[in-house]
């Protein structure tokens, strides 16, 4: 499990609008990579292009290569559905399926694809995933209750459990804590620390301290100007990025002078 990703010269378009331009970045396996930058700079768009989720929006397309384990995700014969099974995702707002119980939510990846499994196997997956997501002790007595009855932080951990239940190689997180209170946020940050021993994690965040706390590598995105595409300004070791960035724009952003 856990694979590295190599992105080379990736352009992302919405129709004829170039949203993100020329991103080249290696993402190491079993580490946490944080994307930071001002709103609208394309970091979420870029994140979604890593498991082809941006294609859900009509007219979106990319140019360039995203290699995972040497395989191009955008090769002609690649099925985006299979790509997404390989690269899981957690969203900004917790989104458990309202029609399903907690256990069914965890198993959603298997169940929705009508994968047959034995009861024992299913129970194992539920327990393992919920334990990994640090939620098992809180919900083990009410696995058959609706997932939407949990608190926001619990729901988000349920969504993480759901994402890792399919055993992906990579976990993408799009501002996973922005809808949560500080306590839930800190629980999820601890969880990210634990998960990186098994998964390659990429996280988008607006919270500088969070990036500093959870990530090994930080990448800074910025807009060249209004109507210009977003670009990757620089990336590197998180401690280096926060103490001694190369680009003045990065420094300005990290010190909170703009954006």
């Amino acid at each position, binding site marked *: 499990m856990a694979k590295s990703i190599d992105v080379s010269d990736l352009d992302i378009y*919405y*129709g*004829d*609008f170039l949203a993100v331009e020329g991103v080249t970045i290696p993402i190491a396996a079993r580490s946490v990579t944080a994307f930071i930058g001002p709103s609208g700079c394309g970091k979420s768009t870029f994140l979604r292009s890593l498991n082809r989720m941006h294609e859900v*929006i*009509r*007219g979106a*397309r990319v*140019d360039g290569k995203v290699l995972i384990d040497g395989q191009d995700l*955008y090769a*002609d*014969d*690649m*099925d*985006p*559905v299979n790509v997404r099974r390989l690269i899981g995702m957690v969203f900004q707002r917790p989104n458990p399926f309202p029609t399903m119980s907690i256990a069914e939510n965890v198993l959603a990846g298997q169940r929705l694809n009508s994968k047959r499994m034995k009861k024992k196997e299913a129970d194992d997956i539920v327990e393992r995933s919920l334990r990994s997501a640090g939620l098992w002790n809180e919900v083990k007595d009410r696995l058959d209750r609706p997932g939407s009855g949990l608190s926001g932080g619990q729901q988000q951990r349920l969504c993480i459990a759901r994402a890792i239940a399919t055993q992906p190689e990579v976990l993408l997180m799009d501002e996973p804590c922005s809808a949560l209170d500080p306590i839930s946020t800190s629980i999820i940050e601890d969880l990210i620390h634990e998960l990186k021993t098994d998964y390659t994690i990429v996280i988008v965040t607006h919270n500088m301290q969070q990036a500093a706390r959870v990530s090994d590598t930080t990448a800074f995105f910025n807009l060249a100007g209004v109507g210009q595409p977003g670009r990757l300004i620089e990336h590197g070791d998180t401690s280096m990025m926060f103490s001694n960035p190369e680009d003045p724009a990065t420094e300005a952003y990290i010190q909170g002078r703009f954006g």
Partner: protein
Amino acid sequence: MGCPPGTTAPSERLTIVTSTQSPERRRTTPTRPGDRIFRGTSLAAALLILATLAGVAVFLTAEGIPGILASPDEVKHGTGFVDYVAPLVFGTLLAAILALTMAVPLAIGVALFISHYAPRKLAAPLGYVIDLLAAVPSVVYGVWGISFLAPALVPLYRWLEDNLGFVPLFAGPASATGRTILTASIVLAVMVLPVITAICREIFLQTPRLHEEAALALGATRWEMARLAIFPYARSGIISASMLGLGRALGETMAVAMVLSASGVVTFNLISSTNPSTIAANIALTFNEATGLTVNALIASGLVLFVITFGVNFAARAIVDRRKDFSGAN
């Protein structure tokens, strides 16, 4: 055909651009058979609806043309098609417009009552009550109209004839059964009222809270707030709601067929026993006895009705859609 207002979503432009300007970049991602079948089925269903609508026009035209072309001695009514259908169109329009004159002010009042005057908690249940009116089958309206409303209105018609007889509308002689075009219009008004009310209510409730509060903050009374904030916002909505009601009134069949004692004349006299008929009622009343080219003539008159209501509904929906674009709702 041009593009109807309100169909140009931003993302649509994007698609068009991708497909025309950069065809070389179109990927051929493998689609799953399940996806292909599902997408095909849903597209087919959507196209079937278009085909049905076209089918209505085509089949009515195909079966109607012989009726339009029929010479007077080949049909039961013994006149050319235009002479046959013109009084019916007159009656249809008269009944519908009368109904609308009564229903629109009432509907606006009811909608305003539900949305802004009744206690907030009661708004939804009161809305249901009005919606129940829309649920009553038209044949029940007919039964009610013929046996309750019409006799109940006879004294009123007598009074109108005696006191307002100098107005051509009430020239009389007053019908003894009460089955006049005015009675039919009242029934129609009751039938279209919930349609208009429902739309007006929605629109009134959508009035931006900020506008309302701005008006109240200026010291406006509730009525002044309605005039300042609600009506300007809702004007096009009220117009299109009325037109949808008009479409409904034009096409309503049974209530008119049962209530109206029609003789197919052209008159503005609303309370006498000789009344104009409407297209829909005329079809309902004569279709079962009709044979040969008379059937075709009836279908042709149905085509005329279809064209009129289609036009009215088309215009109404176009106004609604344009409003959607500018209101910034959603």
